[in-house]
């Protein structure tokens, strides 16, 4: 199935993401930043769908927008103090920060203009019906599962993170 109106959707989603990102780093109110980040994450899920990665899009919606951002909103609401909105928002070395980011941006532009020919523009259109099965083959397959060990390590990492977060946030250890 040929993708329909791809440039329109790409630019729409890209604009949503960039605007969301700008709002995240410029808002005084942390809840507004969190809502802007949620919009950016949902737009990113849309871009994953355009890249024919529906499973990653689904994981992004469930984990990032529906899990991590809920965690952020909880913490923001638990520690919300109104006086932070009236304080200075940007720290003293903001000029150096922007200069660094500018240097990094210059590096990106240099790499992408010089290396533009490395990424030829092929019209790929693979059906997405086998995407989840493909990801599962790479993770769990008997002969093709190269990421099984990483998967187990990731589960251990999550266990350590759970224990760490609980210990950090307890009142008395």
């Amino acid at each position, binding site marked *: 199935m040929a993708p329909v109106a791809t440039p329109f959707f790409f630019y729409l989603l890209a604009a949503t993401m960039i605007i969301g990102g700008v709002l995240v780093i410029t808002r005084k109110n942390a809840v507004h930043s969190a809502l802007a980040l949620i919009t950016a994450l949902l737009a990113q899920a849309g871009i994953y769908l355009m890249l024919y990665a*529906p*499973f990653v899009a*689904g994981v992004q*919606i469930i984990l990032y927008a529906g899990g991590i951002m809920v965690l952020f*909103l909880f913490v923001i609401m638990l520690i919300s103090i109104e006086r932070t909105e009236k304080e200075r928002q940007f720290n003293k070395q903001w000029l150096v920060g922007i200069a660094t980011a500018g240097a990094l941006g210059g590096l990106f532009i240099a790499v992408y203009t010089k290396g533009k020919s490395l990424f030829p523009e092929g019209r790929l259109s693979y059906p997405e019906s086998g995407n989840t099965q493909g990801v599962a083959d790479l993770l769990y397959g008997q002969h093709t599962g190269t990421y099984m060990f990483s998967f187990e390590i990731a589960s251990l990492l999550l266990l350590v993170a759970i224990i760490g977060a609980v210990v950090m946030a307890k009142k008395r250890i």
Partner: protein
Amino acid sequence: MHVIIDYIQSYLGSDQTPGAAGNWFWATVYVLLVFVGLSVAVIAMNWLERKILAHMQVRLGPMRVGPHGLLQPIADALKLLLKEDLIPSEADKTVFWIAPFIVVLAAFTVFVVVPFGPTHAITDMNIGILFMLGVSSLSVLGIVTAGWASNSHYPLIGALRSSAQMVSYEVAMGLAVVSVILMTSLNPTGTGTLSMIGIVRAQQAQGTWFIFKFFPLGLIGFFIFAVAMVAETNRAPFDLPEAESELTAGFHTEYSGFRWSLFFLAEYSAMIAVSSIAVTLWLGGWLRPFPNALQGARWDFFFALFPGITFLFLGALAIFSASRMPKHPYFRIQTLGLAGFAAVLVLIGAVLLYPPVSRVVQDVFWFSAKVAAFMYLYIWYRGTFPRYRFDQLMKVGWKVLLPTGLAVLILTATAGFFVR
């Protein structure tokens, strides 16, 4: 002009959903149909809930507004639309305004993949069930922001409690769903599927609804999901965060008029959405009862009569209650209205008995009938069970449902391994 008509007609004989076939016109038509059907269903649920709860509590419920209170939901909607729109003084206006829309968007977007029939879905995504679980978890965000934006402590506590409850029971729901996805991989092609239509086709191919598979594992999985879905939608007996006697209506305390009706709409849509998940995953979706045990043209004909007979029965009920209305001149309009309503129901029933129509409507009817049974169960729970206290609620979610879900998952995997 001919191009447009050809485009519209090119989809009609297809065996795919409009989204999969790439047909914009029919996809939009299906979206509008789902939207209208959902609104009608929410209105009907409002009336049904008040009447059924009333009859369970040995009283009559709304009787004044129309015959037997049939116009009560319309009166409620008018009242809510015309109410004054209050915003608390220090509330954050932008977030206060956005929060109901997040919940409504999440509740309505879920219906993009709900399969009302083998080709009667808006689209059939490869990750159907994952999409449904993910988008319904976005409503937690709307609730949290609604509670915070109200700038008052009752809504904030209600919102935090409600979102903690929803997040906890999502885990149990996810585990129950995963055990069903495992069962879909036991079909003849050897690969499982996450798509909703694929799950129902797997039940059709394996010859059994998943609630009866590997008995009692399917049943326990269904029970876990049934309890978790009631908690997920903040309905009784898990409705502490929005209970009026405990928290003065929780996170939607400060919302009045149209905004409150948006929350209400989203709550009922979410109920219908999770019931659709339960029906698709465990109860065979659009399949008629006994698809493999009672096969053959005669049984097909018998089951094809059900849609028409249901509406004829409802029409007969309406005629009976019209005949029992008081014979006072003040009740003449109501009696006429009820008789007209009965005539409409009988007409729909007669149309549904006509074979070409009933062939098309079959799948949608069986799916809707099963979802309607779940809606009745929701109302029954509300009328019967006392409310859970919040710590009991969290204890049930984490200490009872989660281990049971894990056990069902492991046992299902073992049973599937031995069946292979």
